[in-house]
């Protein structure tokens, strides 16, 4: 399957548009001049987003005394990394970080694989009851409130020896499944059947058609699904706290919960801890978002 030249040209144009460079004459949105009012309004909105981040940053670098003085907007004076040191020790950061990373990575990979495969099967066999009903079955589950599931899940994971990060990973994947399948099936409907047909004519089996043709095309949605799965798993507190029985195997959010009690005012330590936990999430997003946007335009323009 070769990419036609026209598609390549259009892809380049679209990417440039997204990156804010000067538009070529044939770009998609005809607002030739920069939309200044729009820019300003959006920039203002961006400020509201940055305020909490600012507060987190400054508080993390304050000394304990200053952090508790009630003035959230002041800059750290003196600048101190006490909070980080203490948070690192109190939470046994490296271990918890490693475990959380493994769980999240496995969740992302597992979700993308399982969901894309299941969605493909469903989308391509819509006329069969099993597949169509599987879709609705998976969807319905999105509405089950978590408390209904929690206690039985604790018992079942305890029974099957899954009361550890592995069990949490599996559960995370399962919770993401409904939403991911929804996204993938929606996206799959925009991939024309002719592509698969021509692959089959060339002698490819369905297995090959999926992995070599469809799955790469799903990249933008995979990235989106992946991001949602990443965030859901990385920040999740409830499930690991209930499912993992060995405290030395706990994930980061649970370990950080010792800062959360109403009796504790070590703001600089707790914020330093939250910052250390947030950083990877932000980095991962920044890293993948460029890929997401490029991929989405490719997917859209291939038309």
């Amino acid at each position: 399957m070769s990419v036609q030249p026209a598609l390549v040209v259009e892809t380049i144009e679209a990417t440039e548009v997204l990156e804010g460079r000067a538009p070529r004459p044939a770009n998609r949105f005809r607002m030739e001049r920069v939309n200044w009012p729009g820019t300003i309004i959006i920039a203002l909105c961006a400020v509201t987003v940055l305020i909490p981040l600012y507060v987190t940053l400054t508080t993390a670098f304050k000394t304990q005394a200053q952090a508790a003085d009630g003035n959230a907007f002041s800059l750290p004076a003196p600048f101190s990394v006490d909070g980080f040191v203490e948070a690192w020790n109190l939470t046994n950061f490296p271990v918890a970080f490693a475990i959380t990373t493994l769980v999240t990575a496995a969740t992302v990979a597992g979700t993308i694989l399982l969901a894309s495969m299941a969605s493909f099967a469903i989308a391509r066999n819509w006329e069969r009851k099993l597949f169509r009903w599987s879709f609705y079955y998976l969807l319905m589950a999105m509405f089950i409130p978590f408390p209904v599931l929690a206690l039985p899940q604790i018992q079942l994971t305890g029974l099957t020896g899954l009361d550890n990060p592995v069990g949490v990973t599996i559960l995370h994947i399962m919770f993401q499944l409904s939403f991911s399948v929804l996204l993938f099936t929606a996206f799959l409907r925009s991939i024309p059947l002719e592509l698969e047909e021509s692959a089959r004519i060339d002698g490819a089996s369905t297995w090959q058609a999926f992995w070599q043709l469809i799955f790469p095309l799903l990249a933008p949605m995979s990235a989106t699904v992946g991001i949602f799965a990443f965030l859901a798993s990385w920040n999740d507190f409830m499930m690991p706290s209930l499912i993992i029985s060995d405290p030395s195997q706990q994930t980061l959010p649970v370990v950080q919960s010792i800062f959360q009690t109403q009796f504790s005012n070590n703001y600089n330590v707790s914020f330093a801890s939250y910052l250390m936990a947030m950083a990877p999430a932000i980095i991962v997003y920044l890293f993948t978002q460029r890929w997401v946007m490029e991929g989405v335009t490719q997917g859209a323009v291939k038309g």
Partner: protein
Amino acid sequence: MATTLDDVELDLTKPPATAHGAVPGTRTKVEGIYYLFLLPSLILFTLAITLPAVIGIFFSFTNSIGFGDWEFVGFINYIAAFSDPAILQSYLFTFGFAAVTVLVVNAVAFLLAVGLTSRIRMKTGLRSIFVIPMVISGIVIAFVFNFLFSNSVPALGQALGIGWLSESILANPDLAWIAIVIVTAWQAIPGTLLIYIAGLLSIPGDVYEAADIDGAGKFAQLTRITLPLVAGYVVINVILGFKGFLNAYDIIVGLTAGGPGTATRSIAMTIVTGFTSGDYAYQMANATIFFLITVAIALLQLALTRGRNVL
């Protein structure tokens, strides 16, 4: 090879093109490989989600406290739930709150998405920034906004001489819900935004060019072209958003703890107390009722939008 509008619509109930060019309804054999793709997910899912759900619902018919001895009690928990004013109030509050928040989130996210996919400066930078709320942990958000609403906003209100803003709205039983809407929206917009951006970017440029040629203005293009084409995404966002907000818990606990008084006590808050307060079975009944209502509403939403989706 132009993408037709048909390929872009997202009617979830309309059958897509079928494999092998098969005519829907005929009994061609399903390739085994498709079962291989579907069944692992299905089986794992049933074991991990459906089975516990059934067990959980089962316990709503008992007086279990989560462990230890229990007895079967039939429908008592359900009857009690329907006559419990606290539960009723939590439903009223939560549904009202969810409806308002869905509106706010989708309106703002959609407009932001349009803006962020248009000709503005610093586009990539701004887009990165707007994802931040999604990435910050809920505890930090609740804490920071709690501080802002309790201290900074009243200070601002006093400086500007606005009466009702001079005291923390978190302490005002009639206005506290506004703060919760703001913070929830703040955290929910990035996710919705991402989906809308994906949707907007999937619209090919030729469509707008054709509209230009026909002389349609920007607003007309927005309402007659953009909106219908992303309708499917709107439906997804509204249904999921509404369900998500109905489950509001973290932010409410962090901002108001259900207060002042019990003015902002959500359904999820009430259910979760069932864990720690020995009222497990009762709150499982509450949760089951909640589940049924949520599904009913989602189905309703789907049915209402079914007709409008096919272009």
